[in-house]
Structures are given as C-alpha cells and as structure tokens.
C-alpha cells in the first residue's frame, strides 16, 4: 500500500496541472473563435516562422 503515498500526490498534481492549463487557455481568449481556429491550422502563413 506504500505506493499510494506516491500515486495520490501524483494524481492530484496531474489534475491541478490540467486545471491550470485550462484556466490559462480561458484567460488567453482561446475559446473566442473555435471555428476560425480549427481552420487556421490549414494556413501556411506561419509554418516556417512562428508568429512574432
């Protein structure tokens, strides 16, 4: 049962990481234009250089 001492904190940390990532995406307006974003991946505009 000692393994629980690792597994429980790990699962909690992973959950927290997921939550923080989600909060970050909400804060940075990533859900404002779902339709546009799904099509922008087809664009070649910034393939070779990341957007400055």
């Amino acid at each position, binding site marked *: 049962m000692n393994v629980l001492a690792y597994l429980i904190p790990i699962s909690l940390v992973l959950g927290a990481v997921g939550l923080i990532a989600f909060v970050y995406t909400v804060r940075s307006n990533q859900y404002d*234009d779902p339709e546009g974003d799904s099509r922008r991946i087809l664009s070649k505009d910034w393939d070779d250089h990341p957007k400055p």
Partner: protein
Amino acid sequence: MSNARSVPAGCPGCVAMPKDVEPAPAEARLALSLPTIHCQGCISRVEKALAAHPGVRDARVNLTLKRALVDAAPNMQAADLIPVLEAEGFEAHELDTGALQATTTDKAGRDLLMRLAVAGFASMNVMLLSVSVWSGASDATRDMFHWISAAITLPAIAFSAQPFFRNAWAALSVRKLNMDVPIVLAIVLALITSLWETALSGHHAYFDAALVLTFFLLAGRYLDHRTRAIARSAAEELTALEVPRALRLEEGREVERPISDLRVGDLIRVRPGARMPVDGEIAEGRSELDRSLLTGETLPVFAEPGQTVSAGEVNLTGPLTIRATAVGEDTSLHRMADLVAVAESGRARYTPLADAAAKLYAPGVHILSALSFLGWYLWSGDLRVSLNIAAAVLIITCPCALGLAVPAVTTAASGRLFKKGLLIKHPTALERMAQVDTVVFDKTGTLTTGQPDLTNLGDHPRRDLEVALALAESSAHPLSRALSRAAGEAGIKPARVTDIREVPGFGTEGRFHGETVRLGRAAWVGAPQGAETSAFLRIGSEAPRAFTFTDTLRPGAAETVSGLLERGLKVELVSGDAPLAVERLARELGIPDWIAEAPPEEKAAHIQALSGAGRHVLMVGDGLNDTAALAAAHVSISPASALDAARVASDVVLLGQDLAPIPSAVATAQSATRRIRENFQIATLYNIIAVPLAVAGLATPLIAALAMSTSSVTVSLNALRLKGG
C-alpha cells in the same frame, strides 16, 4: 525571427538604445462585419489585405462571429478599409465598436466555464478515490480516501456551486421556491452527512455525488448561457451595423456628428438615400420620402419645406435640410419602441415548460425527503441513519436531468436554426413557436423586398422606352433604377436626350429632338394619379404614358407561404398599403385572407382579436407600423433589414434575405418541444425507479452516481436526436 527582438545583454551599445522610438499614440480599434467569409482562404485573404493597407497595425478575423478586428492608426476610419475588402471580393460593413463593447469579453460565460472546469477536475479526482472505495478499500485506507476527497470537495464546491447558492438565496429571501433550492439543499446535506460519516469512519460518503451534481448542472447552465450569448451578440451586431451619425450644419458647414450630440433646433442635412436621424420639419429642399418602413405604403411621398418628417423615413431624390423637433429617445421611433416594452410584459406571463416542471418538482422532493427522514427516525430511532437516507433521497432525485433537459435541447435547436439564418432571441421563443396555428404576414419589406419592379415594359413603343431609359439612368430614385434595370435587361439602349436635370421631388427633365421630355410624378407630367405605383413619361405634348411597378417578392416568399399552408396553418396578410397592391400579392401567393390600409393600431387589434379567439399567432413583420402587432403576437419574427424597433419587439430575427427557413423553424420548434417533454419523461421514469431504492435505504453512493450520470447522459443524447423538418 525571434533573435531579432531579443537584445543580447552583453552588448553595451544595445543596452543604451531606447527600446521603442515610436511615441505609440492611442490606437483606433475598428470592427468590421464580414457576412460572406466562410473558410481558411477567406481568413488569409482578409488578414493579408488589411495588413497590407498603410496605417493598419494588426488585423484579426474571428470566423465564429464573422467579424474582423483591426488595430489601426488613430485617424483611420472604417470607411477607408471597406473598399480594400470589397476589392478582394468581400462584403464588409462597419460596426459601431461602442455598441459591441459588451460582447468583446463574455465575463459571465468565462466565469461559468471556470466553475465548470473546477467542478470537472475535482470530480475526476474524487471519483478516482471513490472507485477505490467501491472496489473494496477498507478501514484506515478508506478513511484516508474519504478525508482526501473532503479536502478536494469542500473548496471546489465552495467555488463552483456559487451560482446555485446565490440563486437559491435570492429565491428564499423573497419567500419563494425555485429549482436551485433543492439543489443547494442536496449539495449541503450531502456534504454534511459525508463529513459526519467520514469523521465516524463510516462506509458511505457522497462527496463525488455532490461534485458530479454540480458539474452536470453547471454544464446545463453553461449551454443555456452560450445559446443566449450567441443570440445576444448577433442581435447587438445588427444594432451596431447602423452607425448612428448625422450631418449637422455648423456655421454653414456640414459636420459629421454622432446622433447623441444632436439637440432640438439643430439644422441637419439629409442626403438622398439617407435615413432621417431625428423627427423634424423640412426647412429647405424638395424631395420624396420613402415611408414604407413606417407606414407600409410603397408609394413615395412628396416632401417640401414646412412638412414634418419622422425618424426612420428615407430621403429619396434631393438633399433636404431639416430642423430637429425631437431627438434621441423622444423621436416617434423610440416612443414606438417604448410601447413595445409595455406589450412585452404580456409575454412574461408565459410559463416555460421548465418552470412548470420545477413548480411541481421542488416542493415534491422536499416533502419526500422530509417524510423519509421522519419515517426512518420513527422506525429506527437513529438520527444518523435517517439523515443519511434523507440526503440520499435528495441527491438521487436531484434534477441533473431536469437541469439539462431544456438547455441541451434549446442549444441544439437554436444552433441548427442559426445555421439556417434564424436567430432565437427570447428564451421561451421556441416553446411558443411550437404552438403556432396562425401566421400573419406584413407585406412591404417582409413578403416583398420593398424594391419596385417594372410590370408593363411590353406596353410601350421602343422610342418611348429609350427616352425613359435615358432619363431614368441619371436618377437614383428607386423607380428610375427599376426602370433602367428592366430596360437594360431587355437590351434597350438609351436615346440621345440632352440637358438632363433632376427636379428633386418631381422627376427628371431633358430635351429630345427639340421637345421637352419629363419622367416623374403624375401631377408634374400632367397625368391622372392612379392607384398603382407608377412613374409617368411625357414627350412634348403627347399624352403621358404610365410605367407601373410592383414590389419584388422576397426570395422564398412563395415557398414559405405554401409550406405553411401545407402544414395546415392559417395564413393572413395584413398591410398598410393600398388594397389593389395587397390583393394582387395575396392572390399571387395564394393567401386567402388579407387586410389592406391597416394603420398600426388596427394591426395590433387584429392580432389581439385572433389571440382572443384562442389562436396562437406568429407575426412576421419589419416596419415601425408592425411593432405593436409584433409585440402583441404570441411569437414574432422580423427580418434583419427591419428597423431596430421591430427587431427589438420580435423573438426571432431572420438574418438572411430568404424567408424559406420560417416553415422549417416551426417544425424544429415543434420537434424541440417534443424532445423537452421526452426529457422530462425520462427524468420522471428514472426517479420512479431510483427513489424507492433511496427511500428503502438501499442507495449506496455507487448507485446514486450511476443513476445520476445515466439519466443526464440519456437526456443529452436525446437532445442530439433533434431533427429540423
């Protein structure tokens, strides 16, 4: 690329260099509506074209909202960018950024999304621990799992369930029960009994149930919010499309001012083709006015100094100077919109299905839970057991399915209708639309586009047509434009007419083979005034010739009327226009009942008479003369081209030109209401099975979680079955 921006700290020259030499002035933020964009190619082309325009700093397209946001130099105007996009082949309209402000960041939606996320992540973790308990963790391990669950659940609920706490408190403080009261009671009771059980190292804790309950209910709330937010932002966009500006004469010069700056007594210049921004009196100029949006009459009205004009009328031929007599909120346009607010309160009396269900449900579960607590306490005398069972009853009956039943269906239905070009503005509009048995149409601007079409091209000799075309081509009057369009399509070339000049308010005059030729109003040309919309041509001293016009049908009008008649609905036509024109349109579309020359009060009275006779009326109209009728009807639709007041009064806005989505909207509404009823049945059925288990004390947390999730998922899946006819 990125190297160019980062300054190496070791370089002494760079450190001394000022970072940005530009003074960075305040930027102009412009918003453009782009109704025709639909794909990745469009996004790239629009963004490239805008970015290439001097003065534009950044441009970003939002495909979901079909909008482009531009950061530009401060003196940049949206009018400079529209031709750029039109050259690329995109239709573009300026949006009033002031009116859009509210939707740029959807704070309430974000708030709900955060709470939903916290409830979701917390319930996943707690569920993980619960599964271990259900699969046999015992003694110290079980207690530890329960304590960890409690440590996650309590803060998570404190954050996530706030909307329910607030709503329940608001209802209780005015001594009422709503759906949120049993929800809050269930959550709180579940937490208290679970903590108590955990402290006494009991077997069952309901932490996961409380979280999953919060999660599903928040999901329902969020869906509901999304649907309304989309409708609200689209409705706001329609308002923002009309940028309210007017030309005020200041010391003899025309200055463009926002309408809110205008005062009574100001002199305002209205150019041909523009709408009157205020109520006023004509001080200078002669022209013709298009009053179709206000009164429904299609024939332009002659305008001369001294005549009063109302906001919303369109100036047709000559420039007018008007002296404002009422501005802003005092204009007849706004007074009409205020009348609507009074009529709207009538709509609030309609009880949505969800409220009807909640009214039965909320007291029911409380009584049931109290009874099972009492029963168990009397029978066993054990407070802990009876409280546990009362909590289980509350959790299991808790309205996850009920909370999802309506939002899931309305989201699916309004999404489907939005794709077809219908915007559902009012939360109960779908339910009301499902009950419709009578449809009343307005004529001008609704079944017809309000644009005239020449009807008797073949009746005239070629020479007359050529002369008429020459005169018509030099005028922007809608009848002239219709004439030149029809003649152009028939391959007629304009005659050689010289000295052409437009006489505002009367018509166009010129010289042809030494004779004076005139195209215009009956009295000016010397012809008798007919009942039909017509323009008259006179060549020299010959007898005047009449060109008659009729309204063009709106696309889909014929299909819409026949589609509604096929469904067995009663269709009527009520118009403010002349009887002849109304009768002809009614006959053409096969509408059996029609009323002509109806003033606004009569329209509304007619609708009320129909409602009084027990009919559920759907009113479709666009003008100011329809607003009272729109508000009086059981449910109402107006096209996007309608006046703001009419759009405010209606429950549904038709975004495109085509009327065809109306019959299918009725079908979708009926099928949506059917799904909502089915969802309530599913929820009831599941309660019939689960409640006896809970009352008998057989409901373990596992059973509660299973039953709750199954019913929620079934209800959501049922909503996806929705078909639009």
